[in-house]
């Protein structure tokens, strides 16, 4: 069925809420009252309910199927966490209430911070960044602030970023006023240590490195890299997007990291929500801790206090990243998840995530082309060599997976291999789900090699929409509904 836009469905006089009639006090709007109509459609509650239920039914979701989506860590989202986040004591609390009325909220922030610091082995955490990329910005600002304190902010302006990095890394560095210098990868999918060392110099502010990296591999030379960048006077920013692979088994603090953001919506299972909201707290080393942004929670005796301004701060905060205190709703969910797993469970998370990925790698590498030898960490990278000459591209292969009931894996990322297919099963998929998935992938591989090209190039066929014309969308963008021209409307 088709579902029209709400603007095409609504009509005057219908309304999905009942509000009391205003009593009619004298307004104090000083002539600034709105004159014309806004143009919002009127719909009753049942219509709104059905509209959005029907829209939802056009979506794929982790609750309904497997997302082998590399680098995105689409794991199970426990509903306990949703319930906890909706406790009125968390959800119905204003960020600017007197601090005396929110001790439990501060306790929650402090407790989550404690878990993050312990798990990462880092001495400080900045809670306010609103997503992973925002956390990156926080980390780079802390680095820049540290350089300022050293008087080197104007000279150290270059940030080294591996080719395989997420796009947010270079974008963040640029937003923070740095120039970006790409580091090539070696044959085995890791940072080219020699090339990296050759790029070090007095203008280097630091390196941004994802570990495990976006090829799903642990950077074996991580300590060397950390030491080298430190020796060169720079800082080590670690992109924590892949922390899921090592949580409970490796402390980034032991690897020489100066700053690392943690995507609560990846490792700690807050739901992706079709694109957000996330949360990106950043753990910081002793070198960067003094520059952590406002606000932050401190312990004063047995009380917690939120430091909101520089005057009240004993440290040297680099500024403020958001209006209030961060993604409280996500903090609650993440802490609920952490407490549920505990120290032992979180370690098991990493182990099972890595085990699942290696199982997929081992079970597919004879038919698909694995980009690197195993073991991998939490994700397995393939490239399109196995499709050579079949007329099937990585994209077609991905779209064919949709008709088999899967969300495609991440494709064309990382950029370091051709036609990349990055598979991350996560720890919350069962062996039987993986077995069926492996069977399906082997069958698709067979079909591609057998010349059943149309099964791929026509895919998907079983979806609410088939392939959409993205070029047309971008060429002449239609970004909103507009009312039909009056002539038509008058019909």
């Amino acid at each position, binding site marked *: 069925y088709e*579902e029209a*836009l*709400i603007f095409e469905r609504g009509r005057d006089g219908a*309304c*999905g809420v009942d*509000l009391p009639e205003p009593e009619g006090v004298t*307004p*104090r709007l*000083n002539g*600034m009252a709105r004159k014309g109509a*806004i*143009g919002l459609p009127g719909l009753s509650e049942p219509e709104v*309910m059905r509209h*959005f239920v029907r*829209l*939802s*039914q056009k979506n*794929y979701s982790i609750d*309904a199927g497997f997302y082998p989506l590399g680098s995105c860590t*689409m794991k199970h989202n426990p509903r306990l966490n*949703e319930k906890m986040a909706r*406790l009125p004591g*968390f959800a119905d*609390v*204003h960020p*600017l209430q007197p601090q005396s009325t929110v001790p439990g909220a501060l*306790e929650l922030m402090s407790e989550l911070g404690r878990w993050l610091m312990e798990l990462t082995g880092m001495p400080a955490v900045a809670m306010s960044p609103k997503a992973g*990329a925002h956390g990156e910005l926080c980390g780079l*600002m802390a680095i820049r602030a540290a350089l300022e304190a050293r008087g080197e902010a104007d000279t150290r302006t270059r940030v080294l970023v591996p080719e395989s990095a997420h*796009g947010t890394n270079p*974008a963040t560095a*640029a937003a923070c006023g740095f120039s*970006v210098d790409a580091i090539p990868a070696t044959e085995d999918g890791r940072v080219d240590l020699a090339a990296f060392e050759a790029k070090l110099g007095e203008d280097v502010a630091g390196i941004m490195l994802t570990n495990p990296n976006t090829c799903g591999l*642990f*950077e074996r030379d991580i*300590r060397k890299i950390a030491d080298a960048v430190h020796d060169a006077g720079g800082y080590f920013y670690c992109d924590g997007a892949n922390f899921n692979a090592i949580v409970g088994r490796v402390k980034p603090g032991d690897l020489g990291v100066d700053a690392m953001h943690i995507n609560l919506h990846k490792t700690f299972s807050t739901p*992706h*929500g*079709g*694109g957000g909201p996330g949360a990106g707290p950043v753990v910081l080393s002793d070198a960067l801790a003094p520059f952590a942004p406002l606000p932050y929670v401190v312990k004063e005796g047995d009380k917690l206090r939120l430091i909101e301004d520089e005057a*009240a701060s004993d440290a040297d905060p680099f500024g403020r990243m*958001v*209006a209030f*205190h*961060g993604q409280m709703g996500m903090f609650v969910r993440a802490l609920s998840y952490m407490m549920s*797993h505990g*120290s032992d*469970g*979180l370690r098991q998370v990493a182990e099972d995530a890595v085990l699942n990925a290696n*199982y997929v790698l*081992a*079970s597919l590498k004879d038919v698909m082309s694995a980009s690197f030898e*195993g*073991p991998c*960490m939490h994700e397995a990278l393939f490239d399109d060599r196995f499709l050579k000459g079949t007329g099937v591209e990585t994209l077609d292969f991905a779209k064919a997976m949709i008709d088999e009931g899967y969300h495609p894996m991440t494709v064309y990322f990382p950029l370091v291999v051709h036609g990349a297919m990055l598979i991350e099963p996560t*720890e919350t998929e069962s062996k039987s789900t993986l077995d069926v998935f492996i069977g399906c992938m082997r069958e698709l591989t067979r079909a591609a090699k057998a010349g059943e090209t149309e099964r791929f190039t026509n895919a*998907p066929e079983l979806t*609410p929409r088939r392939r959409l014309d993205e070029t047309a969308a971008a060429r002449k963008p239609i*970004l*909103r509904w507009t009312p039909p021209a009056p002539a038509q409307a008058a019909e």
Partner: protein
Amino acid sequence: MRYLPLTADDRQQMLGVIGAKSIDDLFVDVPEAARIDHAFDLPPHQGELEVERALSAMAAKNVSAGTVPFFVGAGAYKHHVPATVDHLIQRSEFLTSYTPYQPEISQGTLQYLFEFQTQVALLTGMEVANASMYDGSTACSEAVQMAHRVTRRTKAVLSGNLHPHYRAVIETNSRFAGDAVVALEANVTGTEDLAAQIDGETSCVVVQYPDFFGNIQDLSAIAAAAHEQGALLIVAIPEIVSMGALRAPGEMGADIVVAEGQSIGNPLNFGGPYVGLFATRQKYVRQMPGRLAGETVDVDGRRGYVLTLSTREQHIRREKATSNICTNSGLCCLAFTIHLSLLGEQGFTRLAALNHESACKLAGDLEQVAGVDVLTQAFFNEFTIRTPKPAVEVIDALAEKGVLGGVPASRLMPGNEAVRDLIIVAATEVNTDADRAAYKAALAEVLS
């Protein structure tokens, strides 16, 4: 371990397939020194009941807005959200879906984003809007960066009555990006001379509407002044419900309108997650930050939606992107879109009228308290009062009496002696006559 499907048997079998002896074999690339074998200083796993008890105990220590006479605003507002909203956003297909990069199986998300963009454009009176930012403050800062790109200038002029946190975010970002910021002093009556600050270097002027103290002003003059110098006018709206009662910035010449969308569909959440609204003119669309959903057709010619103009974005353009934003506020937009769909024209404008009325009544009540002055002449649902004692003391004393009476301006403008006695007070449709009476009585007691 209820979330982990693998059994000990499964693990053994899988290791066999992989050809590994133990799980440790899979972690060989980790330097030996970095492998943790000991337990962390954290408790072991717990059942639902135990976790629920611990977190409920924390939550119970907080005074939640719904349980007291509540008048706190200054950038986040307590409104009633229909039960339908929270029900719908928890549907698996919305809550647990990924960013809609695969449009064939994401039409639900893409269509509501398209509807959201349309709603935001309509409310602000602008031509186009994006699919959300983190919140109002970061949206405002992104607007400044965008104005710099559009004008190829790097100086922003900020009204003194811009929310101090918005200002701080802009200043922080600008400092690291190497851009200039000129910010005026706060002015409780809203009579600053902003136009005088605009010059040929100015990329944008940022004003808040209604402003931090609650004042409502016609923006046409400042828009004209900005445009005359080739600068853009950025308007920040922390309380989007006001758009149900006030002229839209788009009608007054705004070039970029940003807003905090929390008020519609989203709970207070102690500050987040919220949803930043971002709207601008069609001609600037390629300089916009953030995701955009656009209409197109599929291979069968049927209308559908995709993410579009992604060559502005970090995952394509990397260091040349218009923003580093990736994850946005998807589910919060959805809440916004659903709530606004329920309200519709009639409900939204009535909601705004009720908010204004609630604030007018409260102002009338508080004016009667000896020693209290209402300083804001024209306002929407928020205004500023002056008390004969420092505002922080008054607010704390009110809290002791179970009334959350607003925000001391000094909390957001520490060190500014001029605002020491000012309280920013918000009233919404949730406040009853009894709430207002309780506030008035408590305030009279505190000041007596």
